[in-house]
């Protein structure tokens, strides 16, 4: 249930960096303590605002990586070559520093276990972030012992990355899938693969989607997130395969790091 919020969500709040965790060579997770955080749903994002000493301000949107059940807020940020904000957030910020953020924002690209499944997630690169929040929420909300509950909400993730060392949350995803027979994680590595790789080696296409997803008769909830070309292709293909457009939710990322 949505809690009644006293402070409006459009208000800027102070977030203190508790930890900066390296995920891949180009991504870091910021673990934040946020004053009076009203709670969020998996899939939502926040706006982050930075102010320089001369008053110059810059804002970007970042998806929330942490589950609603967690005490601290986590944002996973990819450092962009040309970026103005991401190099600061991934290379300069230290524990104890403060930034401003507001949110949670987004009522459309959200999922929680009450919406049930099957849950089909398709991620490209840093598009994994909001989908990871959904998987972390699923894991927190469904007890390990409640096997029937997990079978009612089966989940599959199809995750496209360029290389194995660029797969964000790689070990955690492996661990989650190993302990839960109702969760399947499938990777495709599009540029380079380890020598013993037996998985997919190409961009996500119709054949791959057809193989990995549930048929339309099972009415999966589909979430697609990543760079625009990937999202457009996957969403259009899913509709072509017979899934209702209203069941295929999309979020497009660009180098600005913007959600939506």
């Amino acid at each position: 249930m949505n809690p009644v919020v006293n402070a409006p969500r459009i208000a800027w709040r102070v977030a203190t960096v508790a930890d900066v965790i390296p995920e891949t060579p180009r991504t870091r997770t910021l673990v934040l303590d946020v004053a009076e955080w009203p709670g969020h749903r998996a899939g939502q994002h926040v706006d982050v605002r930075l102010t320089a000493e001369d008053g110059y301000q810059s804002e970007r949107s970042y998806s929330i990586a942490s589950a609603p059940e967690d005490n601290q807020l986590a944002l996973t940020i990819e450092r962009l070559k040309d970026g103005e904000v991401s190099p600061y957030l991934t290379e300069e910020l230290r524990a104890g520093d403060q930034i401003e953020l507001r949110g949670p924002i987004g009522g459309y690209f959200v999922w929680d276990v009450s919406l049930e499944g099957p849950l089909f997630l398709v991620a490209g690169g840093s598009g994994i972030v909001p989908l990871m929040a959904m998987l972390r929420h699923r894991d927190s909300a469904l007890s390990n012992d409640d096997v029937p509950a997990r079978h009612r909400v089966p989940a599959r993730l199809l995750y496209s990355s360029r290389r194995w060392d660029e797969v964000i949350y790689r070990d955690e995803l492996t661990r989650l899938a190993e302990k839960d027979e109702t969760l399947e994680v499938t990777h495709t590595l599009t540029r380079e693969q380890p020598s013993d790789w037996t998985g997919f080696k190409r961009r996500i296409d119709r054949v791959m989607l057809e193989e990995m997803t549930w048929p339309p008769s099972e009415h999966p909830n589909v979430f697609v997130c990543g760079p625009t070309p990937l999202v457009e292709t996957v969403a259009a293909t899913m509709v072509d395969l017979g899934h209702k457009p209203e069941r295929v939710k999309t979020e497009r990322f660009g180098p600005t790091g913007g959600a939506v």
Partner: protein
Amino acid sequence: MNVDGNAAAGVLSDLFVHDMTAARAKCAGCGVIREIAELLVFAHGMGTVVRCPDCDGVVMRVSRTPTHVWLDATGATSIVINLAAS
């Protein structure tokens, strides 16, 4: 596009004290009464549009500026909240 009314409820929770997921709206376009949870939600960087799945008419529009939240509910003839359920 999405049939998940929790999307609309999320947007409306800034405006309404009650949980709006189960509230019922009568579409001004075609007269059909549906739970808000059944309406189609289009989120957009500038705002959110909630449409009727029967006639595709716009039932509600919401935008958020730095200082205000705007709601246009002229596409709903009425919205009914069951106090016992909320």
